C-alpha cells in the first residue's frame, strides 16, 4: 500500500512541480489579497489605530450618493459594453471569416491595434481628438464656424461617449477570438447551410452563434471582469467628472485608497463589493448556460 502511494506520488511529482509555482503565486498575489481585502474592509485605520467597525464601511458606501452613482455607472458599463462586444464581435467576425485570408488578417490587425497599443496610449489619442481646446473636435468646430464643445464635460452624455471608447478599445480582441473560432468550424456545415438555401442570417443563427458559444462564455467572463475594473480611460479622459458623473467603482476605490480623503477600510469594502458583484454576474451566466443545457 505504502509502495503504491509512493509510486503514485513519484508519477504525479512532475505535475505538482509544474502546478506548484502557480499555486504559490496565486495564493500569494490573488487569494491572500482577496482575503486581506475582506479583513481590511471591517476595520478603520485612518486615525493611527486599527478599529474594528464591522460592516460600517459597507454602510458608508451604501449611504453615500457618490458611491451609489459609481456602482450604477460600473453596472451600466458592464451592461452596455459587454453585450456590444459580444454582438459586434460575432457580427464582424461572421462577416469576414470566410473571406480571403489577406482581407481577414487585415481587418483583424486593424481592429487589434487598440488592444496592443495599451489603454493609456489609446486614451491619450482620444484626448487629442476630443479636447475642446486643442483637439480635432475644436478644429472641426472652428472649420464649421461653431463654438468649441467640450464633449468630455457633459453630465448626461459623456458616460455614453466613454462606453463607445471602451468598446472601440476592446472589440479587436473579441473579433480575433470569434474569427479564430469560426475558422475552425468545419466547411461541411457552412456548405450544407448554403445548399439548403440558407442565407447569411441563417448561417449566423444556426451555425455561427451556437458553435461559438464557448468563445461567448469566455468573452463574457473576461470582458465583464475587465470592463468592471475600468479605470485608465476614466482617469485620463474625465477623472470621474463632470461632478462624478463618470466615476466608477474602481475609480472611487482608487480615490478612497490614494486620494486626499484616504480611507482604506472603505476602499477595501469597495473592492470586496466589486469582487462580489463580478462573481454574481459570472455565476448568473453559468446558471443560465446550465439551464439552457438542461432544457436541450
Amino acid at each position: 500500500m505504502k509502495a503504491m502511494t509512493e509510486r503514485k506520488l513519484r508519477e504525479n511529482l512532475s505535475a505538482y512541480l509544474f502546478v506548484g509555482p502557480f499555486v504559490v503565486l496565486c495564493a500569494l498575489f490573488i487569494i491572500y489579497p482577496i482575503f486581506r481585502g475582506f479583513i481590511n474592509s471591517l476595520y478603520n485605520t485612518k486615525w493611527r489605530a486599527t478599529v474594528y467597525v464591522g460592516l460600517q464601511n459597507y454602510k458608508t458606501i451604501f449611504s453615500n450618493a457618490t458611491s451609489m452613482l459609481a456602482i450604477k455607472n460600473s453596472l451600466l458599463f458592464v451592461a452596455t459594453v459587454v453585450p456590444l462586444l459580444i454582438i459586434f464581435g460575432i457580427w464582424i467576425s461572421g462577416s469576414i471569416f470566410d473571406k480571403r485570408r489577406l482581407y481577414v488578417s487585415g481587418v483583424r490587425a486593424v481592429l487589434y491595434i487598440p488592444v496592443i497599443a495599451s489603454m493609456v496610449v489609446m486614451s491619450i489619442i482620444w484626448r487629442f481628438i476630443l479636447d475642446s481646446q486643442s483637439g480635432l473636435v475644436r478644429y472641426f468646430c472652428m472649420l464649421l464656424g461653431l463654438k468649441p464643445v467640450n464633449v468630455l464635460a457633459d453630465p448626461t452624455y459623456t458616460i455614453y461617449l466613454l462606453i463607445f471608447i471602451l468598446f472601440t478599445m476592446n472589440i479587436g480582441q473579441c473579433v480575433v477570438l470569434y474569427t479564430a473560432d469560426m475558422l475552425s468550424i468545419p466547411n461541411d456545415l457552412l456548405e450544407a447551410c448554403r445548399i439548403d438555401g440558407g442565407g447569411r442570417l441563417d448561417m449566423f443563427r444556426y451555425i455561427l452563434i451556437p458553435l461559438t458559444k464557448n468563445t461567448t462564455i469566455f468573452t463574457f467572463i473576461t470582458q465583464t471582469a475587465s470592463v468592471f475594473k475600468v479605470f485608465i480611460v476614466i482617469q485620463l479622459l474625465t477623472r470621474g467628472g463632470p461632478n462624478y458623473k463618470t466615476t466608477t467603482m474602481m475609480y472611487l476605490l482608487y480615490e478612497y485608497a490614494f486620494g486626499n480623503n484616504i480611507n482604506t477600510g472603505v476602499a477595501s469594502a469597495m473592492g470586496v463589493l466589486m469582487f462580489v458583484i463580478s462573481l454574481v454576474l459570472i455565476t448568473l451566466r453559468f446558471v443560465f448556460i446550465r439551464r439552457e443545457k438542461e432544457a436541450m
Partner: protein
Amino acid sequence: MKKLLALILTLSLLMGMAVFARAEETLPDHPVDIELWTDFTIDEAIMQKAVDDFNAAYADKGYTVTLNKFAGSQRTTLINGAIENDTLPALLFSAWFTTADYVHQGLVEDITDLIAPVRDDLYDAVYDACVIADKAYMVGMYQSYFGLAYNADIFREAGLDKYITEDANEWARWTMAEFEGDILPTLAKYFEGSEKYPIALFAGDNQADTFTLNWLSSLGGQMWKDGKSNAGADENVIAALEKMISWTENGLTNSDVITRSGTEASPDFRNLNSGVCSCQVSNHTSWLNAMANGSSTQFDLRMATVPAVINGEDTNILANYVYGACVMNNGKADQIAVGKEFLRWLLQGGENLDAINNNAIPCFRSIADASTDPFVPATTKNADLIWDFTGGVPGYVATRSHLFPAIQAAYSGDKTPAQALADYSAEANAIIEEYVENSLVLH
C-alpha cells in the same frame, strides 16, 4: 569669591556636558538609513547637496539620508501608499497646507523644541502658520506667494503695454475692471482664430486649486468662517463663480475648464499658448532658471497679484504657501531621531539653508536681509495682500476632493453655482467635523 566663581563655572560646565551627553544619548549608536521625501518646487541639486553634506558630516556615525524628489501631483498617492505599507519616510519637505492633515492623523512629530533656537529668526507669520494647538510641526524653509504670471512680450504685442510694470521685479496690481474689461478681451482678440487663450481656468482635479480659491475670493467672499466652509453661504463667493463661468462662456479662458488639470495650465503658458497663468514664486524661479539654461522657451516672464473687489473697493489678493520641513512619525524611533538630527543640523545655518530659502521668499529674517535678489523685496511688499486660503481648518486637504467636482457641476450646468457651492460646503464641513472629532493633536 574666586572659589564661588570656580564652583559656578564647574557646575555650568558639568551641566552643559550633561545636556550635551543627553542629546547624544538620544541618537542611535549604529548606522541608520532614512529617506527625505520632497515635492519642493526647487532645483533637485540644491536638495541633493544638503543631503550629501549631511551624509558626509555624519559618515562616522553611519547616518545616511536618501533624497526622493517627486512632483506635487504625486504626493498624495505616494504618502498614502506609504501610510498603508508602513513605509513613511523620516523626513518630509512639503507645503504646510498639504501636511497639516497628516498632523491631525498623528503622523507628524512635534518639533517645537527643535525649532526653539531659531524661533526668533523665523518670521512670525511663518512660524504661526505651522502651529496647531501651540505645538510646531513644521519649520518653514521658504515661502511662495501664489498669484498670476503674465507674458509681457504677448502683452506688448497685444497692445497692453500700460499694464506691464516698469521694473521687471515689480508685481503688477491690476484692477478687476482692467483685468476683465480690457486685459482678457484684448488677449482674446489677439489670440482669435488659434488654440491660444488669455488665461487658464481649470477644474479637472485639485492640482493648483489654490488658484481657483483666489478667484472665488476675488469679490470679497469668505471661503471659510469660524472654522467651517462658508463658500455656499456667501453671495460673493457664488458671484465669483458665476463670473468665472461667464469668462469661459465669453471666450476669455480655455474652453475645457471641466477637464483641464492645473498641471496642464503652466506648460501651455510656458509654450506661449496663453497670456496669463496661475503661478507661485518658486515656479517663477524655476521657470526663469529653465529659460536661462535654454531648456524652455524664452519670454519676458512677469508676476501679478490677483485683482479683487472687496467691499466695493478695488484691491488685490495673494495666497501664500509656506514650504517647510517636518519629521514624520513613522513609528521607527531610530529614524525619527536621525530625522530630527538632520533638521537640527540644517537649522544651524550655512549655505544649504540659504540655498533652500533663496529658492523663493526666505522664511528666515537673516537670510531675507542678506538676500541681494531685488525680486525678494519687490515680492514681500505685497505681504499685506495675503489671505488665509485654508482657513486653518482641520482636514483642509481632504476637503479639496469636493471643490473641483462642485466647480465642474456649476460649469456643466448640472447644478447652479449656488447649489454646487452649497453642496461643496456641506461635504467640506462633514470632513472638518470628522477631523475635529478624531484629530490626534487637538484633544
